[in-house]
């Protein structure tokens, strides 16, 4: 019996190995201005995000 369905997400632990290129959008440049949201920022390092999925 399936009790748990795991949704495919980026593995953050793996992203520690190859992330941090700094090319993604600075979050305060978008709509918020008065609050900080980063989860919606797209990764612009195609190689790293593919490797760490």
């Amino acid at each position, binding site marked *: 019996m399936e009790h748990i369905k795991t*949704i495919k997400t980026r593995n953050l632990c793996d992203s520690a190995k190859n992330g941090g290129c700094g090319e993604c959008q600075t979050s305060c440049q978008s709509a918020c201005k008065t609050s900080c949201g980063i989860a919606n920022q797209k990764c612009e390092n195609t190689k790293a995000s593919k490797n760490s999925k």
Partner: protein
Amino acid sequence: MIHQYKLGGYNIVLDICSGAVHVVDEVAYDIIARFLDGSREDILAAMAKQHPHIPAADIAECYDQIAALKEDGQLFAPDTFEPMAGHLKAKTSGVIKALCLHIAHTCNLNCSYCFASQGKYHGDRAVMSFEVGKQALDFLVANSGSRRNLEVDFFGGEPLMNFDVVKQLVAYARSIEKDAGKNFRFTLTTNGVLIDDDVIDFANREMSNVVLSLDGRREIHDRFRVDYAGNGSWDKIVPKFQQLVKARGGKNYYMRGTFTHANPDFLEDIKTMLDLGFNELSMEPVVCAPGDPSELTEEDLPVILDQYEKLAELMLERDKAGKPFTFYHYMIDLSGGPCIYKRISGCG
């Protein structure tokens, strides 16, 4: 670290450190909640009492699935990130890749709730000269290291009150970006009052994003967003925003509203934005001095929290009906979102 909650008929478990998201049944939800607090035998016994209708073998199987996910690093993943924060700071020290240019410290609206004190930031009314802006762009290029994508937001005050300089700065940036090996991405944040065909053409050609300030319902918007004669701006700006968005041809924009003590039921304002034909939306809580009449109160909180849940339901309904819209804080890219460095460093 685990965060678990129930919403819309789903039991959702977030494993914070690995980023894993699980949708689980009732027994799995309850086992996860106490997984670290007792032995296998203790938890199985407790679950047998709590879920008498579920066979013991099923409960044991569920426990073992959870244990396997833990072993695989997808549940109860340890926080190995804390020491990285300082490392990241050192790694990016001195590198700048974005500027928010205060192109105009003045505004043609007189919104009492403005966090920028009517655009003046408690200073004098002034606009930025081309020379200052040019030096800012040169500074950005010179200090951007190996970063290719550079972001510049034209902000204020109301940047369209200094539109000629905006245009000159964009032209200057375009003239240097190729030789510098950079790619400028511009954003314009505007209250809409001065939007005309020229602005629309320019913004849609040069701005990778535009942020358009609209608080939603006319009576809500016009409560704060008034001109210096006290007239509301809703009737003047909404047709302009509609014209701009229609001409934008799919390029990004945000219809960005502020909610205050006057409209903790901000979902109604989101519905108004949708009725007006806008579907890339953002609503943010007011930032103001303590005691300001617009300040959100403790009593507003339950209403606000409920709005966020109802908003999720509305998004699902509209999606199923083939009329989807986006909400800034709910645009979460689970499979291609930010790496842990970005999450730790936050805004920058």
